[in-house]
């Protein structure tokens, strides 16, 4: 099976800031969950935008086997339009693609049920809690049934209990349609819990410091955080992070 998306020797330079990322090569296979971990400013979010096709690489090549409508992104903040109801926000990607309004609304309602927000479709984003807003954002990403789902530090602003619940929810949602997921985080435990493969980046401009595979079933069984395989993966990622920071410092 051909990869869902791939970066090949890409580099990104920002005017006035110099090199932000690379050289970097990364392949995302269909249905796998990859975590991008690295220190702040290493270019993880830039790598994500390259994979999503939202930004061009300065050098190197970006391959994407998925069409525009088959990629979804969840940003750091919920990024919901405050003037629209939650349901309208979720229906937006479909309506932009020309899906008739009624059908879009029906599918949005389904997506809201999927993320456990059946009751709040008519609420405005300002009336939702942080966790609920993030769920609505997730529903908006899932409504198009993407083959590639990007999560850019999606739970960074939430409390620990909410992040853990959401991590399990994302894994369960993944198991239904099995899109490829790439998510950016600087939380080592979160990466070890959610990803089948963790790619560690060095301090900016980010290169690959190393890769850790987590050989355990997805979604995670209860009590996974107490298992040796989880602890070993987290340790390995931490070691790579430390090495990657030293390499440049």
């Amino acid at each position, binding site marked *: 099976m051909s990869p869902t998306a791939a970066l090949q020797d890409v580099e990104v330079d920002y005017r006035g800031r110099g090199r932000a990322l690379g050289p970097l090569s990364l392949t995302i296979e269909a249905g796998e969950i990859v975590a991008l971990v690295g220190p702040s400013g290493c270019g993880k979010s830039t790598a994500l*935008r390259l994979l*999503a*096709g*939202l930004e061009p690489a300065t050098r190197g090549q970006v391959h994407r086997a998925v069409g*525009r*409508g088959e*990629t*979804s*992104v969840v*940003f*750091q*903040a919920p*990024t919901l*339009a*405050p*003037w*629209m*109801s939650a349901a309208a926000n979720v229906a*937006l*990607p479909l*309506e*932009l*693609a020309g899906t008739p309004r009624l059908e879009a609304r029906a599918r949005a309602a389904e997506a809201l049920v999927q993320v456990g927000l059946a009751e709040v479709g008519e*609420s*405005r*984003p*300002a*009336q939702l809690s942080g966790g609920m807003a993030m769920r609505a954002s997730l529903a908006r990403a899932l409504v*198009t049934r993407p083959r590639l789902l990007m999560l850019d530090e999606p739970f960074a602003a939430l409390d620990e209990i909410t992040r853990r619940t959401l991590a399990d929810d994302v894994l369960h949602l993944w198991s239904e349609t099995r899109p490829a997921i790439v998510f950016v985080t600087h939380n080592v435990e979160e990466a070890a819990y959610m990803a089948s493969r963790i790619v560690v980046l060095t301090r900016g401009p980010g290169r690959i410091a190393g890769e850790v595979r987590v050989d355990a079933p997805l979604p995670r069984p209860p009590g996974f955080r107490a298992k040796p395989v989880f602890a070993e993966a987290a340790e390995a990622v931490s070691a790579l992070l430390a090495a990657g920071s030293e390499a440049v410092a």
Partner: protein
Amino acid sequence: MNRVVDALAPAALILLLLAGWEVACRLTGVPAYFLPPPSKVMLAAASGLTVLVPAAWNTLSVALVALVLAAGAALALALLVGLSPLLERAVRPLASALQVTPVVAVAPLILIWVGIDHPERAVIALAVLVAFFPIFSGTVTGLRSADPDLERLFDLYGASRLQRVLRLRLPAAVPFLMEGLKVGAGLAIIGAVVAEFAAGSGGVRGLAWQILDAGNKLQTDRMIAALVVLAVMGVAVHAGLERLERTGLRWWRGR
């Protein structure tokens, strides 16, 4: 209890100042044409009410018509400019130049162009001129205020330019537009008054003309009465718009 005191404080201050003014006038015996006591101003206001109220309405209606015209023009131009960065770069310097030119200085020219036969049109035109800019620049800023990640989302789903404007930029601009309308309304009243002064001939009988006319006749009490009506009108319009803005924002934000 505290709330009552808070509400009464400004009224108490006004009463105190009026009392001081009244006493000072009586003690010093300053001539009424120079500074009439507040009691005389009140009498002038009461007896002139039948003139002052229509005059106030005259000025207010000019300002409101000007506000509607200015809002329409500003919104249309802002949308055009918002669609084309090149057009914006072309328009900006011209717009700022017009904005910083005092309306009093432009008034005589406008009066010649449109005011010879229809002085009331010239007054409206001048009020439009001053009300236009806050609405225009507010809308232009607002059109660019959308969350960059939401813009990326529209990129991601391949939104057309029209979809982007109608479904993202225009709704995102609403709070800025409301702020612009509030400022613009205040300026429209100022513009109308300044334009009436400039027109000066009595062709337009608003509050400013009342002040001018009373001044020519050295009826200082009538001047001050008209001034007070103008201030009350300004405060009322401002308070009304503030409330409208707050309601609008609550509707926009859903909370």
